[in-house]
């Protein structure tokens, strides 16, 4: 559809039409609990209440949001941390009764004038990592939850049979209903529930519904994602965005939640009741114009979304191929963004929330499925985004149509494309070495590039296949590493260093071998190796703008804090730097995009009526960031050993990798270790691998030292009580936990720097217990 100006009613996708028996579905619903509430005024971005639901006891109640809570935690992810802190225990694991799934909004969530203002932030204890995982996701749910009167929704306990939770703003009710007949997989379920709960048979009414769902894959793996729907009035499809990382969909299905539905009665451009709506509109229009004028010359987000990154990453040797062994591939041009552009539907406002003119949420409509239970059905595929395409290249799969099918099944089965792709890429490498084989893989020939085997694996997984391989493989890289090692099938060092996970979570799709700062960006994180905390590869590797440990540490302080800020407010990160003002390069700190930072200062002030500056934004994040790290410490993690990353993310693990980039690595050995070129010629590849290994591991430890120091932590990575107090925290329980941990680290000798500092080098400070002098 390229003509444009097609009236909404006339628009056709070519998707298979379904005639759901809504009456039958509805009759199957039994109301287990109903809670009536009176919505309060939403004022300056806050509903000032949160909603608590317990599925074990069928209890529903409201909790007040205090001014102190806003001051310390701002909103969004910060509120999520606070709610979890009040309800879970240090012993809580992902499947514990008391584990919660929290969905939060943030003061700017639901704003329509500034692009990227409709994000929900989900938190839970993750099955992959057993610490807190947070995901930032689009779709309408967060905005609708707030407009229904709640800043956050907290779900504890487990239901005994599949239930749907409905936040019904129209009726002023929260209900828990059984839902026995609906499908579990998302693309059908979301459509069924949208039709079922819409007040009337119209696109307008359907657009007032947002559904959260997972799928069969989420039930049988640790990769479960949450699909947040947003009804598209043109395509007439319940499109969806994913809270992908860390298995929150697995927690969701473990709680026997089939879906959560929000139904909003009415909203408009000022439903948040901002302090200064004029300012919000002015700043918003300014950014809309910037996107209009510049996007086509910059990232092309409006035409291909984040997929534009594929060609750039391939060009810079950063596109993971064959389980991150390489960063580019001769076949990669087959999956460059123009190939997907051919498939994408054009000229539709593709924002995942209203008013996002960055509009990166592309789809392929009328796509015919070729395998599995939906074979032959014509569907809308949401995506693929860069990470999903990267997951394809990581498995050495170069067919755009195959990637679309993979994308579709991951979404509808409710599994994360990143974790799934990264883990399977690892299994494929193990298959190549004979550590895995057909017999060990339940009959699947899981070698690089075997498109059919990957889909077959996913179908078996979603069907709940109980073979040993499918069961363990679905739990991800960390568990498979243990399984392979326990069985004695391969060299433990190779298995550990090649499997791309840290903290139990799979890496997202960037090769970080030549960027130390980015290794820190993946390793020195809260939830695990996801690029949402920092993306420093170009700054570090291409522009060499942060050469010293201190520079890198500063970047690994500032950017994680800055990027955390979006999640406190219900915002999307992309409109910050995926479009840049025309004079950005001439500013003093182009990588921060100063004009856009000022936009965010302005819109937070305009919404809340506060009077903060850019430093205060960083402080808001620093509070939550440190609190989350402290909670991880409380959960028994969150220390140096947990910030370990596999060597595959630092350098060549195998001889083949070394040889493929021999010139580069020889040069590094010469430059970094002072080995004479002549001497290098006499060394075997194995010897050179080892030299590089020792050097790069050491570099990472030194970087860790510098970062911990900059963040105000101990050498073991523990936030210090002094730092927490400086941030305004007075919670005795937390301060005591941290002090006790630091004291026991002292006894265990862990309050010492990790790097070995030779003559002429020095650690961040030589003062012992430096934090006590603050």
């Amino acid at each position, binding site marked *: 559809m390229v003509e444009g100006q097609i009236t909404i009613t006339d628009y056709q996708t070519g998707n298979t039409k379904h005639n759901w028996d809504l009456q039958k579905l509805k009759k199957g619903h039994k109301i287990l609990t109903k809670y009536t509430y009176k919505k309060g005024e939403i004022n300056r971005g806050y509903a000032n209440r949160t909603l608590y639901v317990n599925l074990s006891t069928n209890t529903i109640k409201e909790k007040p949001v205090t001014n102190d809570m806003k001051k310390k935690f701002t909103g969004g992810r910060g509120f999520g941390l606070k709610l979890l802190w009040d309800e879970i225990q240090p012993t809580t694991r992902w499947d514990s009764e008391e584990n919660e799934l929290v969905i939060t909004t943030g003061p700017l969530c639901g704003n*329509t004038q500034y692009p990227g203002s409709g994000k929900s932030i989900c938190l839970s204890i993750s099955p992959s990592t057993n610490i807190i995982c947070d995901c930032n996701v689009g779709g309408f749910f967060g905005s609708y939850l707030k407009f229904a009167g709640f800043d956050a929704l907290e779900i504890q306990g487990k239901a005994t049979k599949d239930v749907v939770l409905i936040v019904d703003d129209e009726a002023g009710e929260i209900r828990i209903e059984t839902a026995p007949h609906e499908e579990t997989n998302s693309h059908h379920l979301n459509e069924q529930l949208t039709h079922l709960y819409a007040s009337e048979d119209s696109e307008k009414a359907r657009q007032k519904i947002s559904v959260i769902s997972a799928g069969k894959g989420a039930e049988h793996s640790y990769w479960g994602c949450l699909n947040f729907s947003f009804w598209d*009035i043109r395509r007439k499809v319940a499109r969806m965005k994913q809270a992908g990382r860390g298995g929150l969909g697995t927690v969701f299905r473990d709680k026997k939640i089939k879906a959560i539905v929000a139904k909003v009665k009415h909203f408009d*451009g000022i439903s948040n009741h901002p302090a200064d709506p004029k300012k919000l509109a002015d700043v918003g*229009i300014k950014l*809309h114009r910037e996107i209009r004028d510049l996007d*086509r010359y910059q990232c*092309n987000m409006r035409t291909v979304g984040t997929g534009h990154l594929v060609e750039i990453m391939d060009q810079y040797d950063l596109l993971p191929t064959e389980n991150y062994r390489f960063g580019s591939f001769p076949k990669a041009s087959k999956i460059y963004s123009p190939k997907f*552009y051919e498939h994408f539907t054009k000229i539709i*406002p593709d924002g995942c929330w209203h008013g996002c003119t960055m509009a990166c949420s592309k789809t392929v409509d009328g796509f015919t499925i070729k395998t599995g239970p939906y074979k032959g059905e014509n569907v809308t595929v949401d995506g693929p985004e860069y990470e999903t395409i990267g997951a394809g290249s990581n498995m050495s799969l170069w067919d755009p149509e195959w990637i679309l099918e993979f994308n579709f099944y991951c979404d509808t089965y409710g599994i994360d494309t990143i974790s799934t792709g990264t883990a399977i890429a690892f299994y494929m490498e193990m298959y190549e070495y004979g550590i895995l084989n057909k017999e060990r893989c339940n009959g699947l020939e899981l070698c690089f590039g075997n498109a059919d085997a990957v889909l077959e694996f996913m179908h078996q997984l979603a069907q709940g296949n109980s073979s040993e391989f499918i069961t363990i493989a679905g739990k991800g890289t960390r568990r498979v590493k243990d399984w392979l090692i326990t069985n004695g099938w391969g060299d433990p060092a190779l298995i550990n260093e090649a499997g791309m996970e840290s903290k139990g979570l799979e890496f997202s799709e960037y090769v970080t071998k030549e960027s130390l700062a980015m290794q820190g960006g993946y390793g020195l994180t809260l939830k695990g190796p996801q690029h949402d905390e920092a993306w420093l590869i170009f700054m570090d590797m291409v522009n060499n703008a942060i050469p010293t440990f201190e520079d890198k540490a500063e970047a690994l302080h500032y950017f994680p804090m800055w990027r955390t800020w979006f999640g406190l407010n219900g915002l999307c990160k992309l409109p910050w730097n995926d479009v840049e003002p025309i004079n950005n390069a001439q500013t003093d700190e182009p990588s921060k995009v100063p004009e856009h930072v000022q936009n965010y200062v302005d819109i937070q002030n305009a919404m809340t009526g506060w009077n903060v500056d850019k430093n205060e934004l960083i402080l808001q994040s620093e509070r939550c960031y440190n609190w989350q790290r402290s909670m991880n410490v409380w959960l028994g993690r969150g220390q140096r050993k947990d910030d370990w990353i596999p060597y595959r993310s630092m350098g060549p693990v195998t001889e083949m990798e070394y040889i493929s980039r021999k010139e580069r690595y020889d040069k590094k050995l010469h430059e970094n270790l002072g080995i004479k070129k002549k001497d290098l010629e006499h060394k075997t590849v194995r010897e050179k691998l080892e030299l590089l290994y020792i050097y790069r591991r050491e570099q990472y430890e030194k970087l860790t030292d510098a970062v911990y120091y900059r963040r105000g932590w101990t050498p073991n990575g523990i936030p210090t009580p002094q730092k927490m107090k400086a941030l305004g925290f007075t919670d005795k329980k937390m301060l005591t936990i941290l002090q006790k941990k630091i004291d026991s680290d002292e006894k265990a000798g862990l309050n010492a720097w990790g790097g070995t500092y030779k003559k002429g080098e020095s650690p961040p400070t030589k003062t012992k217990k430096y934090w006590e002098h603050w």
Partner: protein
Amino acid sequence: MVNVLKFYPKKCKGCLECEKACSNVHFKTFDGKEKSAIRITKTEKGYQMHVCDQRGLCLDMCPVGALTRGKNGAVLLNVKTCIGCQACVGFCPIGAMRKNDIRIEPFKCISCGACVRACPEHALELMEKSLDAIKQVVYHKLGA
């Protein structure tokens, strides 16, 4: 077919009766100026009109379907449906979709002819044009 305003600058005397009539249509006031969808300005070259030419690029920008073509072919904004995102304001290539501080929802020329009727000098006229001749689609190509 679509009705589009045509301006005869030589006839205009700059009385701004058109703006006043327009603001009355949109905001029930005769203030004109920022509350009018049509704006007349005096330049060195004489009077100039600034108003929507009904090309309709914004139609494909609206996430809630608040923008549609009316019977007269003009692009209409349904205030009740609009959620005030300003996408249409920001993307209008000629700045003819306007935002006034009175309300969050934008406003624009609807080719109603109030200004035409108000103009004492007959400097304005509603012309019928073919939709295909004026229609424009929002930028969607890959690459600059």
